[in-house]
């Protein structure tokens, strides 16, 4: 089993199928000694990470471990306090349309209907289209994510699951080679959650020109089901405590996969890592508590 525990510095450099991805043109993100935080308290400390093009990375961690901060840093929505992020060789200094983001539940503008929310993105991706052409493309994207014929509706009129489908459609319409997703299915009911996971797998794998996806979640099974590689973050300060190459390539039939011994063992192993970190946090908390008592 390829669970790689990193050293005390949180330094780990292993990527996917080692050797194949270490040339520059195949690397999407290169995160170097990244630190992030406010004043004295660091949210993320010395993160080192390479993400290959076309790779599906699941970032897993308990709440407060800085996984959302990591995603926002990759998007360029936050500025690091130390280290840097290279996207295809260029330092990330701000957001742009090469990196699409799907947030938990606020990716759409509430004053625009679904079609116009997509048209904004289409306008950015391709210039010089007529209004009819843009509307047509928007409807095609809505079709693709399973929302046919609802382009006239506004975000407040539809369910959370439909909003996230539309948010995914917007990212696709933007044509970004990178898709960053911040617990995009976290607010959904279990059935919609599974449906959208399958939709995402379908869209990300059945494509010759695969997008690079970074998917933040706190659900171990979601991470293992979706990711090619799982990055486990520990908290206080946020750092990489493990990288796991998911060994279930081409085996994505949910039921069989979830029943398999391998899958269960791996998810238990990750859950154990998770709990170790949480227990450590609790210990620190209790020591501080006793100190305060005295």
């Amino acid at each position, binding site marked *: 089993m390829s669970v790689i525990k990193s050293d005390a510095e949180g330094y780990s450099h292993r990527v996917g199928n080692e050797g194949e991805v270490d040339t520059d043109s195949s690397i999407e993100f290169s995160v170097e000694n990244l630190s992030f935080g406010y004043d004295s308290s660091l949210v993320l400390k010395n993160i080192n990470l390479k993400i290959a093009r076309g790779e599906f990375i699941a970032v897993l961690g308990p709440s407060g471990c800085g996984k959302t901060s990591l995603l926002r840093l990759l*998007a*360029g*929505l936050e500025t690091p306090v130390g280290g840097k992020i290279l996207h295809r060789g260029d330092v990330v200094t*701000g*957001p*742009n*349309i090469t*990196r*699409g*983001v799907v*947030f938990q539940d*606020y*990716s*759409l*503008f*509430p*004053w625009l209907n679904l079609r116009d929310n997509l048209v*904004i*993105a289409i306008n*950015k991706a391709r210039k010089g289209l007529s209004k009819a052409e843009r509307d047509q493309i928007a409807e095609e994207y809505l079709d693709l994510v399973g929302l046919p014929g609802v382009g006239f509706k*506004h*975000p*407040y009129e539809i369910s959370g699951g439909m909003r996230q489908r539309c948010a995914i459609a917007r990212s696709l319409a*933007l044509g970004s080679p990178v898709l960053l997703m911040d617990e995009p299915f976290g607010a959904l009911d279990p059935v919609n959650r599974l449906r959208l996971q399958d939709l995402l797998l379908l869209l990300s794998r059945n494509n010759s020109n695969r997008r690079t996806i970074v998917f933040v979640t706190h659900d171990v099974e979601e991470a293992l089901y979706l990711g090619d590689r799982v990055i486990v973050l520990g908290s206080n300060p946020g750092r990489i405590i493990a990288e796991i190459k998911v060994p279930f390539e081409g085996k994505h039939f949910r039921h069989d996969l979830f029943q398999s011994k391998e899958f269960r063992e791996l998810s238990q192993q990750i859950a154990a890592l998770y709990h170790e970190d949480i227990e450590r946090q609790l210990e620190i908390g209790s020591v501080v508590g006793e100190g305060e008592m005295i």
Partner: protein
Amino acid sequence: MTQQQHHSVHHHKGIKGFEGLLLFVGIGLCWQVTTTMLPLHDSTLYPSPAVTFKALQDSFPELLKGTLSSFLILIPGYFCAVILGAMWGIVAGTVGWLHRAFDPFAKVVAPVPPTVYIPYAIALMPTFRISAILVVFIGVFWPVFVNTAAGAAAVPLRYRDNAGILGFGRFEYMWRVVFPAVLPNIFAGMSVGLALAFILLTVAELFGANEGLGRFVQYYADYADYPRMVAGILYTGGVTFGSMALLDFVKRRVLFWVR
């Protein structure tokens, strides 16, 4: 079953509408009773409903003409103030250093009651109409500007994030994100501004107009024609209410997405 439910809903609505009318009916009855059954009924200062409505009917053409004159002041003053206040509010609220430059100034100047500008505006401007437009403009500009700038300075992070991801430049951000996001603030400023505009308009007309709603009331008060004066007050109240209701209607249509 459904029929019955519908029926009960309507019934309920009917009762609610009735409650809203209670005070109008009560005050109207009081007015009627005190003017016809008490000894003060022949006082010219306190005309009965019948006399007042006769006066309203008689002076209706004059009131309509006055309304037109008043609206020729109100509309240009109000809409110039709304457009400039909203535009400048968006820019000043979005651009950091402009916000820091304008905020202290607005805090000092905005609370000055605009009525104090009226005499100077009349002295300064060539015609009464232009001076009254100026006063209405000043009165409406500040509430719209202050509300819009506050909203623009506090545009929710989620909208800014999305604008960044979509690669919006500064102008596109202001037009496509800040403007719709602060529409609730703009309308809040417009409501305050409209009430203020009517006050300023009528006060200005008391000072120096030849026609208009405020002038109508002042004129008949001077000649002690109180039925017409009271009719003028009621009519002005009706016009103000109608304008506010229209603004409210537009606001609800435009802000359909605000939950």
